[in-house]
C-alpha cells in the first residue's frame, strides 16, 4: 500500500502546483486583460507574446528556463513559472473578449447615467464578462493539469514523476499510475468549474 500512498502524495503535489500556477496566471491574465481593453494599441503585442508562449513545446520551455538565473533552475519554482506562462493566454484572451463583448448600448447607458469608469468595470463589465473569464480559467486549469506532468522532467515533482519513471523502465503500470490520476483531476476540474460557470452566469 506504500505505492498507493505515494500516488496520493504525488496527486496532492500535482494539484498544489496547478492551483498556484493557475492562480497566478488568473490574477495576471485578468488584470492584464482589463488593462488591454483600455489600451487597444498594446493588444496585438501582448496577445502575440502570450500566443507565442503557448506554441513553444512544453518540454522545450521547461528546458529553456533551467539556465536562467534567479527565476530558473531545477525545481518546483521553475516548473510553476512555465505553467503560468502557458495558462496566461486563455485567461487573458477570454477576459478581453468578455469585456469587449459587452453590448455597446449597455456601456453607453452606464456612462450616460453617470457611472465612473471604476463603477462600470466592477458593476457592469466584469459581471457580464464573468462567464467568459471563468471559461478561460477552466481551459487554463485543464491544460495545466496535463502540462504539469512534464514538470517532473526538471525536478518539479507531481504525477509526472511516475510517467517519466515508467518511460525509463518501460513499465506501463508506472505510466498509468501517473496518467490515470492526472486524467481524473482534469475531468473533475472540467466538471466542477463548468458547474460554477453555469451557476454564476447571470444570463
Amino acid at each position, binding site marked *: 500500500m506504500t505505492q498507493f500512498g505515494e500516488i496520493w502524495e504525488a496527486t496532492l503535489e500535482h494539484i498544489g502546483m496547478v492551483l498556484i500556477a493557475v492562480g497566478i496566471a488568473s490574477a495576471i491574465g485578468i488584470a492584464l486583460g482589463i488593462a488591454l481593453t483600455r489600451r487597444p494599441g498594446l493588444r496585438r503585442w501582448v496577445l502575440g507574446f502570450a500566443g507565442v508562449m503557448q506554441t513553444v513545446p512544453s518540454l522545450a520551455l521547461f528546458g529553456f528556463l533551467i539556465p536562467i538565473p534567479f527565476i530558473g533552475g531545477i525545481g518546483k519554482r521553475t516548473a510553476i513559472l512555465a505553467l503560468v506562462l502557458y495558462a496566461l493566454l486563455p485567461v487573458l484572451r477570454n477576459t478581453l473578449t468578455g469585456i469587449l463583448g459587452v*453590448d455597446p*448600448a*449597455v*456601456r*453607453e*447607458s*452606464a*456612462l*450616460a*447615467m*453617470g*457611472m*465612473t469608469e471604476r*463603477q462600470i468595470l466592477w458593476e*457592469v463589465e466584469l*459581471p*457580464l464578462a464573468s462567464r467568459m473569464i471563468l471559461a478561460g480559467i477552466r481551459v487554463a486549469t485543464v491544460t495545466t493539469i496535463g502540462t504539469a506532468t512534464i514538470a517532473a522532467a526538471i525536478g518539479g515533482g507531481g504525477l509526472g514523476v511516475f510517467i517519466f519513471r515508467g518511460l525509463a523502465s518501460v513499465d506501463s503500470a508506472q505510466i498509468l499510475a501517473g496518467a490515470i490520476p492526472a486524467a481524473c483531476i482534469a475531468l473533475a476540474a472540467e466538471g466542477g468549474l463548468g458547474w460554477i460557470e453555469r451557476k454564476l452566469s*447571470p*444570463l
Partner: protein
Amino acid sequence: MVEFRDVSYRIGAKQILSHLDLAIEAGETLVLLGRSGSGKTTALKMVNGLIMPTAGLVLVEGKPTTEWNLVRLRRRIGYVIQDVGLFPHFTVAQNIGLVPRLETWEPQRIARRTAELLAMLDLPPEQYLHRYPRELSGGQRQRIGVARALAADPPVLLFDEPFGALDPVTRHEIQQQFLRISRSLGKTAIFVTHDAREGMLLGRRIGLLSAGRLETVVEPAGFMQARGAEVEAFQASLA
C-alpha cells in the same frame, strides 16, 4: 436650460454638425428631426458630454459641458436610447434604482421611487420589480428604460429615437404615455426622431436638421406651412 452656441463637430474632414445655434427652454420638449446622418444624435450626445464639440459651446444650466464634472452632469440628465441598454444582470428594480443608488439614496426611498415609477408607466410593480430584462417585451423594456431615466428626478431628459424599434401599436401607446407624463412632469426634454409624425405629436417645437445644419425651428402647428428643401421633404413623407 440647454443651449447650443455655434456648435460644430467634425471627424477628420467629415463635418457632422455645422454652427448649430439653439436654445431649449426649461420645461419644453424640443424635437430634433432629421434623416440618418443629419447630426441629430451627435447634437443630443453633446448635452450629456458623451461627445464634446470640436468648436462652440454646449451649455447646460448656464455652464459649458467642458466645465462640468461629467459624472455630476450625467446624473442630472436622463438618457433613453433605442437599444434601451438595460443592464441584463440587474433586475428591473435594480435597473431603475441605479442612479438613485449611485446618488446614495436610502434603500427605502429607492424602493418607494421605483414602485412609483412603475405604477406611473402602467406596469404593476409587484409583477415587474424582480424580473430580468430578458423576460420583458420590447415595449416593456423601453418603458423600464424611461423609468430608469426618470428615477433620480433629473431636470433634463434626452431621448434618442426611443420608440423607433417598437411595433406601431406599442409605439402609439408609449407615445401617448410619454405625452401624459411629459405634460405632468414639466421636464426639459430633447427628443431625437426621424419620424415627422412622432415629432409633431410630441414636440412643442421641432428643430429640423439637414446634413449637420439646422434648417428651421417651427412649432408643430406651423410645420406643414414651413418652407425649405428638407422640411418639404418631410412634409411629403407625411402625405
